[in-house]
């Protein structure tokens, strides 16, 4: 696990000061304070309609992506569907 990954998000600086550290799918990353889930997905070029997002083990509804801000130390899981029948 990398401690600091790519710096993401230079937008929405007005909503917070400096950067926060996040764990995204097990990897350490930094983001601007005030970043939302929607911002994060946009930054990662992930279509929001095909993923589910968990923040600290709690699922966030797709409709909440725009509103849900991220905080220092949040553990985020972004999941989607891959090829699989039964246990591979």
């Amino acid at each position, binding site marked *: 696990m990398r401690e600091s990954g790519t710096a993401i998000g230079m937008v929405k600086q007005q909503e917070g000061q400096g950067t926060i550290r996040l764990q995204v799918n097990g990897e350490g990353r930094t983001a601007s304070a005030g970043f939302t889930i929607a911002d994060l997905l946009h930054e990662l070029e992930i279509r929001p309609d095909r993923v*589910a997002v*968990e923040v600290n083990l709690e699922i966030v509804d797709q409709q909440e992506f725009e509103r849900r801000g991220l905080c220092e130390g949040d553990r985020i*899981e972004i999941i*989607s*569907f*891959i*090829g*699989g*029948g039964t246990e591979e």
Partner: protein
Amino acid sequence: MNDDRLVIAGREFKSRLWVGTGKYKDFIETQKAIEASGADVVTVAVRRVNITDRSKENLLDYLDPKKYTILPNTAGCYTVEDAVRYARLARAAGVSDLVKLEVIGDERTLFPDTAGLIEAAKILIKEGFVVLPYTNDDPVVAKKLVDIGCPAVMPLAAPIGSGLGIRNPYNLKIILETVKVPIIVDAGVGTASDAALAMEYGADAVLMNTAIAGARDPIAMAEAMKYAVEAGRLAFKAGRIPRKLYATASSPIEGML
């Protein structure tokens, strides 16, 4: 066969062959094989998005959710907690509230942990999921799953990916006789005759992945499976003749010289 639709929890399905999407060479092959199989239910696994390789294409770019019923599974889950978590995530990703529930109990055989399966199914049914449980060929467990509200049961033919065909035909027949919801034989099919046999016994559908994806020519095998399932279903409905030890001539004696 248009009047012979499979209905589960109010949803109608045209094809009685359901397919998995794993182990294909690429998405094009996946798409072509599924097309050739005629399946309208495709099962998919729930996994982390690859955030480091953003160029990676999405499976759903190749499987139009308008055309196919996407059936997320909880493959790889060994605990009730994990299976429930994966099912919730799958629903949150917005394809449907269907889930093919797997709680695996053993790494080598990939046999289900049926106690965990029942527990997880109860939790998810309470949350409004349509739970299709992957289970053992055990008639008692199958009945329990129906009693707690599963609208179909998916007993295995043989261990996942083993290609052994139906290992326990008598148990399967007992399940088919005693369980009054659709039975989808899931896992262990090796070739077309295995699928046809499951359907001849009276299974309502067959789900497979490796038998198609692992064949030398997956697209041709997908087509073979389509016909096998259709033929088996027709034969089941037509009613086979009884087995007899001795011959019965099919040509009349009358008129012989």
